[in-house]
Protein backbone atom coordinates (compact mmCIF):
# COMPACT_ATOMS: atom_id res chain seq x y z
CA UNK A 1 0.00 0.00 0.00
CA UNK A 2 1.95 3.00 -1.21
CA UNK A 3 -0.77 5.22 -2.71
CA UNK A 4 -0.26 8.53 -0.84
CA UNK A 5 -3.98 9.42 -0.94
CA UNK A 6 -4.91 6.13 0.73
CA UNK A 7 -2.18 6.60 3.33
CA UNK A 8 -3.46 10.10 4.15
CA UNK A 9 -7.05 8.84 4.40
CA UNK A 10 -5.94 5.97 6.64
CA UNK A 11 -4.07 8.42 8.86
CA UNK A 12 -7.04 10.78 9.14
CA UNK A 13 -9.37 7.86 9.90
CA UNK A 14 -7.85 7.93 13.39
CA UNK A 15 -8.58 11.64 13.91
CA UNK A 16 -7.85 15.17 12.69
CA UNK A 17 -4.20 15.92 11.88
CA UNK A 18 -2.09 18.63 10.29
CA UNK A 19 0.55 17.92 7.63
CA UNK A 20 3.49 17.13 9.89
CA UNK A 21 1.38 14.92 12.19
CA UNK A 22 0.16 12.96 9.15
CA UNK A 23 3.74 12.54 7.92
CA UNK A 24 4.85 11.18 11.32
CA UNK A 25 1.80 8.90 11.68
CA UNK A 26 2.17 7.43 8.17
CA UNK A 27 5.85 6.72 8.78
CA UNK A 28 4.88 4.95 12.02
CA UNK A 29 2.06 2.73 10.73
CA UNK A 30 3.17 2.15 7.11
CA UNK A 31 6.94 2.60 7.31
CA UNK A 32 6.73 5.08 4.44
CA UNK A 33 8.01 8.64 4.68
CA UNK A 34 5.97 10.84 2.39
CA UNK A 35 7.93 13.83 1.11
CA UNK A 36 6.35 17.28 1.58
CA UNK A 37 5.51 17.57 -2.14
CA UNK A 38 3.90 14.12 -2.23
CA UNK A 39 1.94 14.75 0.98
CA UNK A 40 0.54 18.08 -0.14
CA UNK A 41 -0.16 16.70 -3.62
CA UNK A 42 -2.30 14.02 -1.98
CA UNK A 43 -3.99 16.55 0.35
CA UNK A 44 -4.84 18.78 -2.67
CA UNK A 45 -6.37 15.88 -4.62
CA UNK A 46 -8.30 14.59 -1.60
CA UNK A 47 -9.73 18.03 -0.84
CA UNK A 48 -10.73 18.49 -4.50
CA UNK A 49 -12.54 15.15 -4.37
CA UNK A 50 -14.29 16.16 -1.15
CA UNK A 51 -12.78 13.24 0.77
CA UNK A 52 -11.09 15.45 3.36
CA UNK A 53 -11.69 19.01 4.56
CA UNK A 54 -9.91 21.64 6.67
CA UNK A 55 -10.86 21.97 10.35
CA UNK A 56 -11.28 25.49 11.78
CA UNK A 57 -8.20 26.45 13.75
CA UNK A 58 -6.44 29.52 15.08
CA UNK A 59 -3.02 28.40 13.75
CA UNK A 60 -3.63 28.56 9.98
CA UNK A 61 -0.01 27.54 9.30
CA UNK A 62 -0.64 24.16 10.90
CA UNK A 63 -4.02 23.48 9.35
CA UNK A 64 -5.59 20.22 10.56
CA UNK A 65 -7.68 18.11 8.17
CA UNK A 66 -10.62 15.80 8.79
CA UNK A 67 -11.84 12.86 6.75
CA UNK A 68 -15.37 13.40 5.37
CA UNK A 69 -18.15 10.79 5.17
CA UNK A 70 -17.43 10.36 1.45
CA UNK A 71 -13.75 9.93 2.29
CA UNK A 72 -14.54 7.26 4.86
CA UNK A 73 -16.70 5.45 2.33
CA UNK A 74 -13.94 5.57 -0.30
CA UNK A 75 -11.33 4.40 2.20
CA UNK A 76 -13.55 1.51 3.31
CA UNK A 77 -14.03 0.42 -0.33
CA UNK A 78 -10.33 0.59 -1.08
CA UNK A 79 -9.35 -1.25 2.10
CA UNK A 80 -11.94 -3.97 1.45
CA UNK A 81 -10.49 -4.42 -2.02
CA UNK A 82 -6.96 -4.57 -0.63
CA UNK A 83 -8.13 -6.99 2.04
CA UNK A 84 -9.45 -9.36 -0.63
CA UNK A 85 -6.08 -9.25 -2.39
CA UNK A 86 -4.21 -9.89 0.87
CA UNK A 87 -6.48 -12.81 1.85
CA UNK A 88 -6.26 -14.39 -1.58
CA UNK A 89 -2.49 -13.99 -1.68
CA UNK A 90 -2.02 -15.46 1.79
CA UNK A 91 -4.28 -18.45 1.14
CA UNK A 92 -2.48 -19.18 -2.13
CA UNK A 93 0.86 -18.96 -0.37
CA UNK A 94 -0.33 -21.54 2.17
CA UNK A 95 -1.42 -23.89 -0.62
CA UNK A 96 1.89 -23.56 -2.45
Amino acid at each position, binding site marked *: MSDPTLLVLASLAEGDK*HGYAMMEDIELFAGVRL*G*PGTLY*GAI*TRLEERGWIGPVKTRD*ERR*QPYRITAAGQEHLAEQLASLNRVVKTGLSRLKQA
Partner: protein
Amino acid sequence: MKPVLRFLVYLYPAWWRHRYGRELEALLEDSGSGWRDVWDLFRGAMEMQMSKWTFGAIVAVCGVAGLAIAGAVAFAMPYEYRSTATLKIDPVFDTDALNRVVHAAFTPQVLSEIIRQEHLYGEAPLDGSIERLLRAIRMEPAAPNLVRVSFAYNNPAQAQRVSQDLVSRIISANVNPSISQYQLRIELTTPPDPPKKVGEGKRLSLAHLGFPAGMLFGVVLALILRLRRARTAN
Protein backbone atom coordinates in the same frame (compact mmCIF):
# COMPACT_ATOMS: atom_id res chain seq x y z
CA MET B 1 18.79 23.23 2.59
CA LYS B 2 15.81 25.19 3.96
CA PRO B 3 16.33 28.20 1.63
CA VAL B 4 16.38 25.82 -1.37
CA LEU B 5 13.15 24.19 -0.22
CA ARG B 6 11.54 27.58 0.46
CA PHE B 7 12.50 28.66 -3.06
CA LEU B 8 10.90 25.50 -4.49
CA VAL B 9 7.59 26.45 -2.86
CA TYR B 10 7.55 29.42 -5.29
CA LEU B 11 7.53 26.98 -8.21
CA TYR B 12 3.98 25.96 -7.25
CA PRO B 13 1.20 27.83 -9.09
CA ALA B 14 -0.11 31.01 -7.41
CA TRP B 15 -3.60 29.57 -6.78
CA TRP B 16 -2.01 26.62 -4.96
CA ARG B 17 0.41 28.77 -2.90
CA HIS B 18 -2.49 31.00 -1.87
CA ARG B 19 -4.33 27.98 -0.47
CA TYR B 20 -1.52 25.71 0.84
CA GLY B 21 1.70 27.76 0.70
CA ARG B 22 1.85 28.75 4.37
CA GLU B 23 0.99 25.21 5.51
CA LEU B 24 3.73 23.74 3.33
CA GLU B 25 6.27 26.24 4.69
CA ALA B 26 5.26 25.29 8.27
CA LEU B 27 5.68 21.60 7.38
CA LEU B 28 9.17 22.29 6.01
CA GLU B 29 10.06 24.09 9.25
CA ASP B 30 8.78 21.19 11.38
CA SER B 31 10.24 18.27 9.44
CA GLY B 32 13.91 17.40 9.08
CA SER B 33 14.26 17.91 5.36
CA GLY B 34 16.94 16.33 3.18
CA TRP B 35 17.99 16.39 -0.45
CA ARG B 36 15.33 13.78 -1.21
CA ASP B 37 12.75 16.44 -0.37
CA VAL B 38 14.22 18.82 -2.96
CA TRP B 39 13.31 16.42 -5.76
CA ASP B 40 9.99 15.60 -4.09
CA LEU B 41 9.02 19.29 -3.88
CA PHE B 42 10.19 20.01 -7.43
CA ARG B 43 8.17 17.07 -8.77
CA GLY B 44 5.14 18.12 -6.70
CA ALA B 45 5.39 21.70 -8.00
CA MET B 46 5.60 20.53 -11.63
CA GLU B 47 2.67 18.18 -11.13
CA MET B 48 0.60 20.99 -9.62
CA GLN B 49 1.58 23.38 -12.42
CA MET B 50 0.53 20.83 -15.03
CA SER B 51 -2.67 19.84 -13.23
CA LYS B 52 -4.46 22.84 -14.77
CA TRP B 53 -2.72 22.75 -18.14
CA THR B 54 -4.43 21.44 -21.25
CA PHE B 55 -3.01 18.56 -23.30
CA GLY B 56 -1.73 21.03 -25.92
CA ALA B 57 -0.08 23.29 -23.32
CA ILE B 58 1.86 20.36 -21.81
CA VAL B 59 3.05 19.26 -25.28
CA ALA B 60 4.05 22.82 -26.26
CA VAL B 61 5.91 23.54 -23.01
CA CYS B 62 7.76 20.20 -23.21
CA GLY B 63 8.68 20.96 -26.85
CA VAL B 64 10.17 24.33 -25.89
CA ALA B 65 11.95 22.77 -22.88
CA GLY B 66 13.33 20.03 -25.18
CA LEU B 67 14.60 22.67 -27.61
CA ALA B 68 16.26 24.61 -24.77
CA ILE B 69 17.92 21.52 -23.26
CA ALA B 70 19.08 20.13 -26.63
CA GLY B 71 20.34 23.61 -27.61
CA ALA B 72 22.32 23.91 -24.37
CA VAL B 73 23.80 20.42 -24.80
CA ALA B 74 24.61 21.02 -28.49
CA PHE B 75 26.40 24.30 -27.87
CA ALA B 76 28.24 22.95 -24.83
CA MET B 77 29.82 20.27 -27.04
CA PRO B 78 33.49 21.07 -27.77
CA TYR B 79 34.25 22.13 -31.33
CA GLU B 80 36.19 19.79 -33.59
CA TYR B 81 38.74 20.83 -36.19
CA ARG B 82 39.63 18.78 -39.25
CA SER B 83 42.93 19.07 -41.06
CA THR B 84 43.20 17.51 -44.52
CA ALA B 85 46.17 16.47 -46.62
CA THR B 86 46.10 15.12 -50.17
CA LEU B 87 48.15 12.18 -51.44
CA LYS B 88 48.83 11.29 -55.05
CA ILE B 89 48.78 7.58 -55.82
CA ASP B 90 50.56 6.30 -58.91
CA PRO B 91 50.40 4.54 -61.25
CA VAL B 92 46.69 3.85 -60.66
CA PHE B 93 44.33 4.18 -57.78
CA ASP B 94 44.22 0.63 -56.50
CA THR B 95 41.97 0.51 -53.46
CA ASP B 96 43.12 -2.93 -52.33
CA ALA B 97 46.79 -2.03 -52.58
CA LEU B 98 46.22 1.27 -50.78
CA ASN B 99 44.26 -0.50 -48.05
CA ARG B 100 47.17 -2.87 -47.49
CA VAL B 101 49.57 0.05 -47.19
CA VAL B 102 47.26 1.87 -44.77
CA HIS B 103 46.79 -1.32 -42.77
CA ALA B 104 50.59 -1.67 -42.51
CA ALA B 105 50.96 2.02 -41.60
CA PHE B 106 48.29 2.19 -38.89
CA THR B 107 49.20 -0.70 -36.64
CA PRO B 108 47.92 -0.58 -33.04
CA GLN B 109 51.50 0.19 -31.92
CA VAL B 110 51.75 3.16 -34.28
CA LEU B 111 48.33 4.48 -33.27
CA SER B 112 49.08 4.16 -29.54
CA GLU B 113 52.38 5.98 -30.14
CA ILE B 114 50.52 8.87 -31.81
CA ILE B 115 48.03 8.96 -28.91
CA ARG B 116 50.84 9.04 -26.35
CA GLN B 117 52.88 11.65 -28.21
CA GLU B 118 49.97 14.03 -28.63
CA HIS B 119 48.23 13.17 -25.31
CA LEU B 120 44.99 12.56 -27.22
CA TYR B 121 41.71 11.69 -25.42
CA GLY B 122 42.96 12.40 -21.88
CA GLU B 123 42.91 9.48 -19.47
CA ALA B 124 40.65 7.24 -21.58
CA PRO B 125 41.73 3.56 -21.85
CA LEU B 126 44.07 2.87 -24.76
CA ASP B 127 41.73 0.47 -26.60
CA GLY B 128 38.94 3.02 -26.60
CA SER B 129 41.35 5.79 -27.62
CA ILE B 130 42.60 3.78 -30.61
CA GLU B 131 39.01 3.27 -31.75
CA ARG B 132 38.30 7.00 -31.38
CA LEU B 133 41.45 7.85 -33.31
CA LEU B 134 40.46 5.51 -36.14
CA ARG B 135 36.95 7.02 -36.22
CA ALA B 136 38.47 10.52 -36.45
CA ILE B 137 40.59 9.56 -39.48
CA ARG B 138 38.89 9.96 -42.83
CA MET B 139 40.23 8.78 -46.19
CA GLU B 140 38.28 9.63 -49.32
CA PRO B 141 39.10 9.73 -53.02
CA ALA B 142 39.41 13.26 -54.40
CA ALA B 143 40.19 12.34 -58.01
CA PRO B 144 41.07 9.08 -59.85
CA ASN B 145 44.61 9.13 -58.40
CA LEU B 146 44.20 11.48 -55.44
CA VAL B 147 43.12 10.58 -51.93
CA ARG B 148 42.36 12.98 -49.10
CA VAL B 149 43.51 11.98 -45.62
CA SER B 150 42.12 13.99 -42.73
CA PHE B 151 41.97 13.91 -38.97
CA ALA B 152 39.57 15.70 -36.60
CA TYR B 153 40.28 16.71 -33.00
CA ASN B 154 39.15 19.39 -30.57
CA ASN B 155 42.54 21.14 -30.71
CA PRO B 156 43.32 22.60 -34.17
CA ALA B 157 47.13 22.48 -33.80
CA GLN B 158 47.02 18.83 -32.73
CA ALA B 159 44.61 17.98 -35.56
CA GLN B 160 47.11 19.39 -38.06
CA ARG B 161 50.13 17.67 -36.46
CA VAL B 162 48.40 14.27 -36.33
CA SER B 163 47.22 14.67 -39.91
CA GLN B 164 50.85 15.33 -40.96
CA ASP B 165 52.00 12.32 -38.93
CA LEU B 166 49.40 10.06 -40.55
CA VAL B 167 50.36 10.89 -44.13
CA SER B 168 54.07 10.56 -43.29
CA ARG B 169 53.44 7.10 -41.88
CA ILE B 170 51.49 6.05 -44.98
CA ILE B 171 54.35 7.21 -47.20
CA SER B 172 56.95 5.45 -45.00
CA ALA B 173 54.95 2.22 -44.92
CA ASN B 174 54.74 2.29 -48.72
CA VAL B 175 58.52 2.26 -49.14
CA ASN B 176 58.89 -0.53 -46.59
CA PRO B 177 60.35 -3.54 -48.51
CA SER B 178 57.63 -5.90 -47.30
CA ILE B 179 54.94 -3.56 -48.65
CA SER B 180 56.64 -2.20 -51.75
CA GLN B 181 55.58 -5.34 -53.65
CA TYR B 182 52.33 -3.44 -54.36
CA GLN B 183 54.39 -0.99 -56.42
CA LEU B 184 52.44 2.10 -55.57
CA ARG B 185 54.07 5.47 -55.67
CA ILE B 186 52.59 7.69 -53.00
CA GLU B 187 53.54 11.31 -52.63
CA LEU B 188 52.20 14.22 -50.70
CA THR B 189 50.67 16.81 -53.04
CA THR B 190 48.98 19.05 -50.46
CA PRO B 191 50.31 19.15 -46.90
CA PRO B 192 47.76 19.23 -44.04
CA ASP B 193 45.78 22.45 -44.40
CA PRO B 194 44.93 24.77 -41.50
CA PRO B 195 42.17 22.91 -39.62
CA LYS B 196 38.56 23.81 -40.33
CA LYS B 197 35.81 23.79 -37.72
CA VAL B 198 33.54 20.78 -38.28
CA GLY B 199 30.32 19.46 -36.77
CA GLU B 200 28.27 22.68 -36.98
CA GLY B 201 25.59 20.77 -38.86
CA LYS B 202 25.58 18.03 -36.20
CA ARG B 203 25.08 20.66 -33.49
CA LEU B 204 22.21 22.30 -35.32
CA SER B 205 20.57 18.92 -36.01
CA LEU B 206 20.85 18.02 -32.34
CA ALA B 207 19.39 21.39 -31.30
CA HIS B 208 16.53 21.03 -33.80
CA LEU B 209 15.87 17.47 -32.68
CA GLY B 210 15.16 18.79 -29.16
CA PHE B 211 11.81 20.32 -30.15
CA PRO B 212 10.14 17.20 -31.65
CA ALA B 213 11.74 15.01 -28.95
CA GLY B 214 10.39 17.34 -26.25
CA MET B 215 6.96 17.34 -27.88
CA LEU B 216 6.96 13.56 -28.05
CA PHE B 217 7.88 13.44 -24.38
CA GLY B 218 5.09 15.97 -23.73
CA VAL B 219 2.51 13.75 -25.45
CA VAL B 220 3.58 10.76 -23.33
CA LEU B 221 3.59 12.89 -20.17
CA ALA B 222 0.17 14.39 -20.95
CA LEU B 223 -1.26 10.90 -21.56
CA ILE B 224 0.21 9.62 -18.28
CA LEU B 225 -1.22 12.61 -16.40
CA ARG B 226 -4.60 12.13 -18.06
CA LEU B 227 -4.61 8.44 -17.07
CA ARG B 228 -3.59 9.29 -13.51
CA ARG B 229 -6.31 11.94 -13.24
CA ALA B 230 -8.89 9.49 -14.60
CA ARG B 231 -7.74 6.85 -12.09
CA THR B 232 -7.92 9.23 -9.09
CA ALA B 233 -11.33 10.47 -10.29
CA ASN B 234 -12.75 6.92 -10.07
